[in-house]
C-alpha cells in the first residue's frame, strides 16, 4: 500500500502532462479548426491547374488584416456584424455591386435597366442576364437556379433570416435558362436592384439544398464565386482565405492568401501594426488615430461613408405628436440652435480634420442632392431670433419665457469619447446664445430600446438626441423608417424611428413618390424634395459626415476608397511588397 501511492501520483501527473500535450499539439489538427472540405479545394485546383499556378505565383504574397471584432458568421442572411461583411465580400458575390460613386455595376449579372427592357415599364418585372462561365470555387457551375434558391431560402419560415425586406414583395422567380433570371414583383419595390446583392449575396443551391440553414457548415466556411475562399476558421483567432483557383478572372486575385486575425483590443492592434504582425488594421478609433499617423511605414486611409452624425430635435413634449415641445414647437428656436453651432472646432480638434461638415441626411450616392448648405454660424442672428420669439435673459445669461428656462437635454449613447466631447463643445456654443444644455447620456440599449423597453427615443423622452445614421445605396428604406409620419412611434406598439415626430404631407408624398417608381430621374427629384423638407423643418441638424478610417502598411498597394463597400471591397486587386 505504501508503495503504490507514489505510483498513483505519477500516473496523475502523466494524465496532466498528456492533457497538455494534447492541447499543445499541432493547432490545425485538433484545437479549434474547421477545415474546408478537402475535395472542394482539390477539385478546384484540378479543374484549372495552369491558371492558378501561373497567376498565383507571380505577384503572390500573404496579407494579414487585424479585426477587432470576430465575424459572427459568414452567411449574408444571418450575420449581424460588420466584420462578417468584410470577410464574406471576398468570398460571396451578389448579382450587382456598387462602385465608389454609388452606381450599380455588374458582378454576377449585368445591371438591369429600363433602357434595354430588363426592367419592365411598370417596374414589376426585373430580368437578370447572368455572366457566363462563372463557377463556384468547387468548380460547380453557377446558374439561375442559385438565384431562385436564394429567394426560396430567404422566404422559408424555418430559416429565421435577418431580413425579408423586398424579398417579400417578390411573387415568383422564373429561370427560363441557366443564364436568365426573371424576378416578378407583386408590388413595386424601389430598391429592387440592391436585392440579392448589397449587402446580401447569392447562395449556392448545390451546397445548401437539404441542409439545415440555421446551422449549416456554410455559415462558417461558405462556398462562393468570389476571388477568395475560406480555408480555415480558427475560432477566436483567425480566418484564413486562399485565392480561389476557379475565379472567373484568372489574373485575380493578386494575393495568395489573406489572414484575418482577431485582435479584440485596439491597443494590441496598435502594437501589432507597429511590429508588422498585421498589414491592415480595420476601423481605427478616432481617439487613437494619432498613434497610427505617427507610425513609420503606415498610412491612414480615410473613406467617406453615408453615415451622418446629427442632432435630432424632438418636436413633441413627449411621445404625442399633437403636444408640441415647449421650445422646439417654435421654428425660430430650431433655427437659432442651428445657427449657434460652429462645426469647425468639432471637426478640426475632435476629428483631426478627417471628416467634413455634413449638410444633408443623404450625403453620398446617386440620391444625394447637390448644392446644399447649412445655416451659417451666426450667434448674433441666433440671439436675435430667440429675442424675437420672446426668450429673454433671465439674469444669469440663460433665457426664459413665461417663467420657463431655456434648458434642453441632450442624449447620446454612453462611452463614446468623441461624442461626449462634442456635447461639451455644443454646451459652450449654446450657452453663448443663452441656451442651457444639460448632458444626459444613457447606454445604447436604453436609448435605442423599443417601445416596450421604454426606449428613450421611441418614447420621446429627450429634447435633443445626438446620433449617427445614413442611407444604404438606395435611401428608400432609410427615409421611410426615419422621416415618414407613419413611422412616428406612438401608443400602442410604437413602431418606427421618426423620433423627431415630424409630420409633413409634402414629405410623406415625396417619400412615397421615391419608393413607387424605378425611374432613377424621378426618384432623384423626389429625394431632393424629401431632403429639402427635412432641412427646412429644422429638426435634423447635420453635424459631420462620419468617415471610415483604416490603417495600411506602406507595403500594401491597390486599395481605393469606396463608401458603399467595406475596407476589403477590392482586395482582389491588392498586392503586398516584400
Amino acid at each position, binding site marked *: 500500500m505504501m508503495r503504490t501511492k507514489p505510483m498513483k501520483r505519477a500516473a496523475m501527473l502523466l494524465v496532466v502532462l498528456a*492533457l497538455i500535450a494534447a492541447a499543445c499539439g499541432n493547432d490545425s489538427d485538433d484545437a479549434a479548426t*474547421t477545415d474546408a472540405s478537402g475535395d472542394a479545394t482539390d477539385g478546384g485546383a484540378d479543374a484549372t491547374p495552369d491558371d492558378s499556378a501561373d497567376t498565383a505565383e507571380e505577384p503572390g504574397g500573404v496579407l494579414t488584416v487585424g479585426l477587432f471584432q470576430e465575424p459572427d458568421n459568414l452567411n449574408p442572411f444571418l450575420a449581424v456584424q460588420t466584420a462578417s461583411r468584410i470577410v464574406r465580400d471576398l468570398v460571396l458575390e451578389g448579382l450587382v455591386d456598387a462602385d465608389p460613386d454609388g452606381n450599380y455595376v455588374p458582378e454576377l449579372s449585368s445591371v438591369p435597366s429600363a433602357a434595354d427592357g430588363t426592367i419592365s415599364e411598370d417596374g414589376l418585372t426585373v430580368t437578370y442576364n447572368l455572366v457566363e462561365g462563372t463557377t463556384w470555387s468547387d468548380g460547380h457551375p453557377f446558374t439561375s437556379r442559385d438565384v431562385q434558391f436564394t429567394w426560396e431560402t430567404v422566404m422559408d419560415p424555418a430559416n*429565421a433570416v435577418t431580413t*425579408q425586406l423586398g424579398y417579400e414583395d417578390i411573387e415568383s422567380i422564373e429561370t427560363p435558362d441557366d443564364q436568365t433570371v426573371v424576378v416578378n414583383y407583386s408590388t413595386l419595390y424601389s430598391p429592387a436592384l440592391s436585392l440579392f446583392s448589397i449587402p446580401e449575396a447569392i447562395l449556392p443551391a448545390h451546397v445548401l439544398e437539404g441542409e439545415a440553414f440555421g446551422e449549416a457548415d456554410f455559415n462558417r466556411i461558405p462556398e462562393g464565386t468570389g476571388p477568395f475562399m475560406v480555408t480555415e476558421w480558427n475560432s*477566436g483567432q483567425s480566418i484564413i482565405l486562399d485565392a480561389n483557383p476557379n475565379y472567373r478572372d484568372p489574373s485575380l486575385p493578386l494575393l495568395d492568401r489573406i489572414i484575418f486575425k482577431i485582435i479584440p483590443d485596439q491597443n494590441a492592434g496598435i502594437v501589432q501594426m507597429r511590429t508588422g504582425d498585421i498589414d491592415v488594421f480595420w476601423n481605427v478609433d478616432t481617439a487613437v488615430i494619432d498613434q497610427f499617423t505617427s507610425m513609420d511605414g503606415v498610412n491612414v486611409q480615410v473613406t467617406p461613408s453615408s453615415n451622418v452624425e446629427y442632432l435630432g430635435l424632438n418636436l413633441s413634449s413627449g411621445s404625442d405628436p399633437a403636444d408640441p415641445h415647449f421650445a422646439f414647437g417654435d421654428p425660430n428656436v430650431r433655427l437659432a440652435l442651428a445657427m449657434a453651432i460652429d462645426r469647425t472646432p468639432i471637426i478640426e480638434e475632435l476629428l483631426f480634420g478627417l471628416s467634413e461638415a455634413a449638410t444633408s441626411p443623404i450625403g453620398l450616392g446617386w440620391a444625394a442632392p447637390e448644392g446644399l448648405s447649412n445655416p451659417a454660424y451666426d450667434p448674433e442672428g441666433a440671439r436675435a431670433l430667440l429675442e424675437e420669439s420672446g426668450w429673454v435673459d433671465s439674469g444669469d445669461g440663460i433665457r426664459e419665457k413665461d417663467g420657463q428656462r431655456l434648458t434642453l437635454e441632450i442624449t447620446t449613447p454612453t462611452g463614446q469619447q468623441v461624442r461626449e466631447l462634442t456635447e461639451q463643445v455644443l454646451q459652450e456654443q449654446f450657452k453663448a446664445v443663452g441656451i442651457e444644455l444639460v448632458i444626459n447620456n444613457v447606454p445604447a440599449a436604453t436609448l435605442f430600446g423599443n417601445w416596450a*423597453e421604454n426606449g428613450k427615443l421611441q418614447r420621446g423622452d429627450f429634447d435633443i438626441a445626438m446620433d449617427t445614421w445614413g442611407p444604404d445605396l438606395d435611401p428608400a428604406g432609410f427615409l421611410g423608417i426615419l422621416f415618414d409620419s407613419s413611422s412616428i412611434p406612438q401608443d400602442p406598439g410604437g413602431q418606427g424611428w421618426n423620433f423627431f415626430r415630424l409630420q409633413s404631407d409634402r414629405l410623406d408624398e415625396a417619400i412615397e413618390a421615391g419608393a413607387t417608381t424605378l425611374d432613377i430621374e424621378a426618384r432623384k427629384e423626389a429625394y431632393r424634395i424629401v431632403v429639402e423638407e427635412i432641412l427646412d423643418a429644422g429638426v435634423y441638424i447635420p453635424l459631420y459626415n462620419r468617415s471610415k478610417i483604416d490603417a495600411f502598411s506602406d507595403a500594401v498597394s491597390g486599395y481605393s476608397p469606396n463608401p458603399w463597400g467595406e475596407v476589403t471591397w477590392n482586395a482582389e486587386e491588392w498586392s503586398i511588397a516584400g
Partner: protein
Amino acid sequence: MLKFIVKRILQAVPILIGISVVAFVLLQLTPGGPTAAYRGIANIRGEDLARIEAELGYDRPIVAQYFTWLGSFIQGDWGISFVARQPVFDLIMERLPATLLLMAAGITVSLIISIPLGLLAAIKRDTWIDHTLTFASFVGLSIPVFWLGLMLIVIFAVWLDWFPTGGMGPPGEDIDILTRIRYLTLPTITVSMVSLSFFTRYLRSSMIETMDEEYMRFNKARGLPPIRRYLRHALRNAGIPFVTVVAIHIPEFLVGTLVVETIFSWPGTGRLFWDSAIRFDYPVLMGVLVLGSLMVVASNLLADVLYSKLDPRVRFD
C-alpha cells in the same frame, strides 16, 4: 466507494438543474430579450424581429422554452448559437482544449512553485525567509488579475518584446512546442498568481500544524534526518488537506481564465463566454454556464475522492 460516487453524482443532478433554471430565467430577463442580438442591424423592422422571435421559438412561454432546452440538452443537442449559427456543443468543444491547456498550465505552475515555497516557509518559520514569502504571497493574493495581465503585456510584450501580446500562436502556421510556450507564458503567470499565493500560504500553515504534532517531535528525538521528517512524515500528513484544497480550487482557475482569456485574446471558453455575453448569444451562454457548473461539481467530487484515497481513516459508505 463506487456507491459514494454514484450517490454524489445523483445529488449533483438537482443542483445542476437548479443552476440551469436560474441562468435560463436570468438570461430571459435581460433587457433586450432573446432577439437583442439582431437589434445591431440599423434598419431592422419590428416585424422582422417578431418573425425571428417566432421562428426561433422565443415567443413561447418561458416554462415551455426551458423544458424544450432541457430535453435537447440532455440528448446532447445544446442548441444553435444565434451568432455563429453553428451547434453550441461544437463551438464549446472547439474552445475547450485551449481553456484546459491554460488551466492545466496554471495548475501545474502553481503547484511546482507553491509546494517548495510553502515547505520552505514552514521549515524556516518566523525567519526573514518566511516573512518575505508571507508578504509576497499576500501581495500575490491582492493583485487584481486583469491589472497583472495588462502590466505583464505592457512590460514583457510591448516594452521588452520577449513575449507576444496575445493569442495562441501565429495564424496560419504550424505551431511547435516552443512557440506555444512563448504564447502561453504570460497568460499562465496571470492565471496562476492568485492560486500560487494561496497554495503557498495554505501549505505553510498546514505544514506548521503538522510539525507541531507530537509524533513529529518524537521523530526528531528518534534522530530521523530532517529531509526525511519533513517530506516523508510532515508533508505526507499536511498534504492530505492540501490536495483537497487544490481540487476544490480548480473552478477558480476556470473563473480566472474568463478574465485572462479576454486580456490575452486566448481563444478558450472564457472568451467565448465574454463574447457571447456582449452579443446576447443566449444558447452559448447557457452551454458554457452549465459546463462550468459541471466542472465545479466534478472538482468537488474529485476532492472528496482524493481525500478518501489519501487518508485511510476516511471511508465513504
